[in-house]
């Protein structure tokens, strides 16, 4: 069963979900780079959207989707088509099917703090704000992300959003922003 057919089988378009409303949809893209581009575009335009990870039982590799207000489907589609990044498909869905990727887990090691976002962990020395470790993921760009970021301070390190191409890069960006907020 394909990724999309799972959603279609579970939730017919227009069918009320558990909360009695179908007011959100998801957009599926060709690859994660397009998801990140689309997120940047839509947020810049003020749309209320969220990048989500599909539920674990249907996730294959580094899938990401964007949740959006269904009522704005055509406007959002026009906007993305204008940017040259139309989604592969837009599907109505209820939120219990999705998992947000921005759930943080914080571990304090004393001199160091680790922030985990989804499948990525970022560890920073508190006193110097030096990034001492990047781990997790399993995506092909993680070694590169770690190579570019470990040893740099939070202020000097490149943004994972700019240099990453996968869900891991996206999750690392969230951890990066969270640890900067805390340090």
């Amino acid at each position, binding site marked *: 069963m394909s990724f999309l057919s799972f959603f279609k089988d579970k939730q017919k378009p227009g069918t009320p979900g558990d909360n009695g409303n179908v007011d959100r949809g998801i957009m599926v893209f060709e690859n994660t780079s397009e998801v990140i581009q689309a997120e940047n575009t839509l947020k810049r335009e003020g749309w209320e959207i969220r990048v989500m990870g599909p539920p674990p039982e249907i996730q294959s590799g580094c899938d990401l989707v964007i949740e959006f207000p269904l009522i704005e489907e055509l406007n959002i589609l026009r906007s993305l088509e204008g940017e040259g990044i139309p989604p592969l498909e837009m599907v109505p869905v209820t939120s219990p099917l999705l998992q947000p990727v921005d759930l943080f887990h914080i571990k304090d090691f004393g001199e160091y703090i*680790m922030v985990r976002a989804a499948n990525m962990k970022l560890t920073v020395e508190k006193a110097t704000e030096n990034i*001492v470790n990047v*781990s*997790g993921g399993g995506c092909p760009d993680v070694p590169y992300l770690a190579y570019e970021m470990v040893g740099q301070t939070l202020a000097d390190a490149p943004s994972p959003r700019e240099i990453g191409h996968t869900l891991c890069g996206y999750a690392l960006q969230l951890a990066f922003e969270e640890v900067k907020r805390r340090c």
Partner: protein
Amino acid sequence: MSTKVDARGLSCPQPVLMTLDEIKTGNTNEIEILVDTETSKENVSRAATSQGWEVADVSEEGDEYKITIRKD
């Protein structure tokens, strides 16, 4: 003088943090670190390099790795 860090059985980032703690003591210019995952081996090597240490040797015994790092 060489010192040892046994980080076997620990998950990231703990092997890295233990290595950095040993580096910070300033008591040695050679440290042997024992880890038991490929990921920890890479993370420890990367962290040591970022601190200006050289990865002098990595040996593999079964599922374990011994990383020797040095600073002149």
